[in-house]
C-alpha cells in the first residue's frame, strides 16, 4: 500500500508541475523555453515552501535538494550553463550533504513532537509577504533599459573573464574556503577529556 501512495503523490506532483507549463505553452503562446521556465519555477517555489514548512527536518533537506535542482534548470534556461553545473556540484553535492550530516548529528529523540514554528510565525509570514510584494513592485516599476534577449554565455568566455579580470577575488575566495574549513573543524571539535 505504501508504494501505491508514493506513486500517487508523484503523479500529483508531476501534474502540479506540468500544468502551468502546459498552460503557458498552449495558451499564453509561449515557446518551449517559456514552458520549461514555468515548470521549473513552479517546482522551485513549491519545494521552497516545503523546505520552510515541513515538520520533519530531513524531508526539509530533501526538498531543498529538489529546489536546488530546479534552480539549476532555470540557470540553464537563463543561459548560464556553467553556473548551473556549479550549482549542482556545490550546492547539492556539498552543501546539502553537509546540512544533512549536521541534521543527523543534532537530532534529538523528541524532535517531531514539538512545535515547528516560533510564536512569531504569523508576523514573520506577514513580513515575508510584504517583502515579496515590495520587491515585485520595485522590480516591475523599474525600467531596465535595453533588456535584450537573454544571451547564452560560452564557457570559454566565462573562463577568460574569471581568470583574467577576477583572478584576485578568485584567489581570495579560495583562501576564504580554506579559512572556513579550518574554522569549522576547530569549532566543531570535541573538547579533549582530561586524561
Amino acid at each position, binding site marked *: 500500500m505504501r508504494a501505491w501512495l508514493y506513486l500517487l503523490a508523484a503523479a500529483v506532483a508531476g501534474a502540479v508541475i506540468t500544468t502551468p507549463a502546459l498552460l503557458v505553452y498552449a495558451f499564453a503562446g509561449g515557446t518551449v523555453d517559456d514552458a520549461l521556465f514555468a515548470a521549473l519555477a513552479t517546482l522551485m517555489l513549491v519545494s521552497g515552501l516545503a523546505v520552510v514548512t515541513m515538520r520533519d527536518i530531513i524531508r526539509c533537506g530533501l526538498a531543498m535538494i529538489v529546489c536546488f535542482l530546479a534552480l539549476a534548470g532555470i540557470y540553464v534556461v537563463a543561459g548560464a550553463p556553467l553556473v548551473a553545473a556549479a550549482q549542482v556540484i556545490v550546492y547539492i553535492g556539498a552543501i546539502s550533504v553537509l546540512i544533512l550530516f549536521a541534521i543527523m548529528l*543534532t537530532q534529538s529523540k523528541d524532535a517531531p513532537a514539538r512545535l515547528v514554528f516560533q510564536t512569531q510565525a504569523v508576523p514573520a509570514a506577514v513580513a515575508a509577504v510584504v517583502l515579496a510584494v515590495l520587491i515585485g513592485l520595485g522590480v516591475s516599476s523599474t525600467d531596465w533599459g535595453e533588456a535584450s534577449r537573454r544571451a547564452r554565455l560560452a564557457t570559454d568566455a566565462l573562463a577568460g573573464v574569471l581568470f583574467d579580470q577576477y583572478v584576485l577575488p578568485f584567489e581570495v575566495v579560495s583562501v576564504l574556503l580554506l579559512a572556513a574549513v579550518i574554522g569549522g573543524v576547530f569549532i566543531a571539535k570535541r573538547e579533549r577529556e582530561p586524561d
Partner: protein
Amino acid sequence: MADSLDAYLILAGTLFAIGTFGFLARRNAISMLMSIELMLNAVNLAIVAFGSFIPALKADGSVIALMVMAVAAAEATVGLAIVIAIYRNRKTPLVDEYDAMRR
C-alpha cells in the same frame, strides 16, 4: 516569460521572501540555515538574470554568482560547525531555547 527579466527577478524575490519566512519562523537552527541558503540562491538567481539580460554585464554575472556560491559554502560550513558546537553544549537544536543572553 523566459525572455523577460522581470519574471526572473520576481521569481528571485519570491524565493527570497520564502527564505525570509523560514528564517524568522522555524525553531530548528538548521532550518534557519537552510532558509539562509534559499535566500542566497534567490540572490544568485537575480545576479545571473542580470548578467544574462544586460549586455554590459555579460560574463560578470556568472562570475559573481560563482563567488557567491563559494562564499555560501564557506558560510554554511562555519554556521553548521557552530550549530553543532552549541548543540553539544545545550543538547537542543532549537534556537528559542538559546536564551542565556536574556537579561
